């Protein structure tokens, strides 16, 4: 029996070779060439096509959120940057999808057993095929945005929703009606350095199978995330070993930047909103008023 593949690349080849359902309904015909690169390109093209609706869902969600951000901005930071959208990776790339499929797959040399995440179920089981990110200036801005995005899904707040919030609620559902908070996590529960607010949105009706992950994070948290991505995440994903000490340092930097965010929030409170006041940790979107 052939040896089990060790690297991510070898696993990807084996996955495509053994588990891509060529010529099945909804799948492309097998290319004439059996060359691995040709097959991989054909699979990537197919994945690209499959993820188009997720990208469209992410963009249309951004279009619905955009006016809400402007409303929050007008209320809490009319004279400074509140946040910016980042849609530069609004669709998960085919190589990332393939990597996700093989990451926890431990096949033997014949490619058995079949992966838990495969070509027939990845659309349902990967939650960030479509994704958008909002990068907030201050920590308190991230929380204001969170409040404004959760409010449409709070029945008790229905009477005070703005027209933009109502449109968001009418067109998209938010899983569990709130954004998951990995910023203010109990230190005992924290396993990784990433700090963000994450919500899973789904279009209502016809396209409800499409999931879009929305992340809200601060500029510092985004900066940390980008560095962690290349120094730590990508390497580990490839199966490379990142020294424990380096991992610890990267993790500690996340804590440090969290502290920096808190400090800037306190300074903002003291300088811009009145010296000595304690920072308000939960600025609510209840200030948003209006209606159709």
């Amino acid at each position: 029996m052939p040896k089990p593949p060790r690297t991510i690349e070898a696993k990807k080849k084996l996955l495509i070779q053994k588990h891509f359902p060529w010529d099945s309904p909804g799948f492309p015909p097998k290319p004439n060439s059996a060359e691995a690169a040709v097959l991989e390109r054909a699979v990537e093209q197919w994945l690209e096509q499959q993820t188009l609706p997720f990208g469209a869902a992410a963009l249309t969600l951004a279009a619905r959120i955009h006016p809400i951000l402007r409303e929050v901005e007008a209320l809490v930071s009319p004279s400074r940057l509140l946040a910016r959208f980042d849609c530069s990776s609004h669709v998960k790339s085919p190589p990332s999808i393939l990597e996700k499929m093989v990451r926890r797959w431990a096949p033997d040399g014949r490619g058995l057993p079949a992966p838990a995440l495969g070509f027939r179920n990845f659309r349902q089981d990967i939650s960030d095929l479509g994704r958008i990110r909002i990068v907030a200036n201050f920590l308190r801005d991230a929380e204001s945005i969170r409040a404004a995005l959760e409010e449409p899904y709070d029945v008790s707040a229905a009477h005070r929703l703005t027209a933009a919030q109502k449109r968001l609620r009418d067109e998209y559902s938010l899983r569990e009606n709130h954004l998951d908070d990995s910023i203010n996590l109990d230190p005992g529960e924290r396993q990784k350095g990433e700090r963000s607010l994450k919500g899973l949105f789904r279009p209502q009706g016809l396209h409800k199978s499409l999931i879009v992950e929305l992340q809200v994070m601060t500029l510092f948290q985004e900066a940390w995330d980008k560095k962690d991505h290349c120094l730590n995440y990508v390497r580990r994903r490839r199966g490379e070993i990142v020294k424990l000490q380096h991992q610890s340092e990267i993790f500690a930097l996340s804590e440090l930047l969290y502290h920096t965010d808190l400090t800037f929030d306190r300074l903002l409170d003291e300088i811009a909103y009145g010296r000595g006041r304690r920072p308000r940790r939960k600025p609510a979107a209840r200030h948003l008023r209006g209606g159709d």
Partner: protein
Amino acid sequence: MRWRDETLPTGRLLAHFASDDRSRNRSLLFLVTGAADIEPLTKIEEVCQAVISELRLTEFEWHAVPDQGLLTSIDPNLAPAKVTRLEVAELGELTMEELDELLRPVLPRIALGEPELFPSAGGAVGAPAEGIQLLGRERELAEIAHRVDEGQSMLLVAPRRSGKTSVLRCLENQLRDRYRTAYLDLERFLSPEDLASRLWVLASGERIRVAQQRAASAWRPLFSDALRLLAGGDPSRPLLLLLDELVFFLRNLVPAEKKSGDRRQPVLDFLRDLSDLCLGADARVVIAGSLELTEYLEYELGLERDDLPPMLRSLVHFPLPPPTFRSGQLEMRRVLLGTGLVVDPLELEWLVANADLASPFAALRFLDQLAARARMGGALSIGELEAELDSFLSTTEAFQDSVQRLVDKARRLPGAKAALEEALDGLAAAPEESGLTAEAFREPLSRSRPAEADRLLTWLIENFPIRREGDQIAFASRLFRRWWRRQLADDGQEAVQ
């Protein structure tokens, strides 16, 4: 119907950056508003990707634009002024096949950095339509080019405002590689000296003053030299003369107050010179104009066909029928996209049924009027569109040329006007799609002028937006039909009063 909202912040950008210089770029931004745009945006991307791949277009990039206020954050070289913005909702109802048909010609234009991606109503002010603005003439252009290749010279015959000059200009551009093309709008030239000097400048690049001095002493040799120089002596690339408004020029040759017999000779002399020079240079000639050459020669100057020089005798009569489109809806949609008008399916149906593009000049003028209304804000309901059309038809001069043709014809054939009008009235009263049988349409003509009925029938078909399919005759332009019916109703009211 409403005006496009180009201020929507979010969309998907398809940008083309020249690989050697990213500051040369051209883009299309598909703007989205909400979940209803998911499916159409997905289809648009799929179609564009397929077209890009099939046509082997390169250097295209897709970008997500969350806020078009920050467009340059995608690439500092991106030129916001070279971004054409469309709402995805404008393409929402289209099938993949329709999207393909609509976007396929657009992507190569983006790659070429063309400023216009769709035809628009805004330019319908009477100037010739060029490039993408020329609607529904692909078949005729190909046919004329084919005949020119076969060595024929042609006389284009068509109703006024139906694109003859535009066809000449397009031929000039399309055939430039195979012919030494020269387009001359002869209406601008008041005398043979003027024509000869301008032609010499065109051929030689010499200063106009010098050319005018030479023409003043002897225009014929200069005219002949200019044609020879233009022809260039390269048999593989013959001269193609595109002469617009020849009749205007011929009329300018001699004062109108002179009797036709006195006017005949200078005109014939000029035409003989032109004929000899063109034949000598193996030039092809395509003639067009709002005044019909054969009618002018025959009725105004009393010249018979045999009196004419060889090139004029050999002219192939090429009727330019009203433009036809594979899909009227799709063509209308292209114009709406170019104009910035957003319609729902019912409004599109109404537009195609009432303001079809078979009379492009009038239809584009009407769409321009609608665009002006929509730009002022607010949406137009179908009821309001009806009211706008009514107001347009009561004030437009877009069809006045047709009436003038009728008057001119009546001047040459006394008593024919009533019969011609009766035939048109009958056609306007007939069912829109089926029209009348040729016999029924011909009946007033046969009754009034039996000997000329066939010629008058042909004249009507060639000079009005009328189509003939087998034995059936109908108006090709619904807009013209509606206008004619309105004139009839107005005449009726005046008669009652």
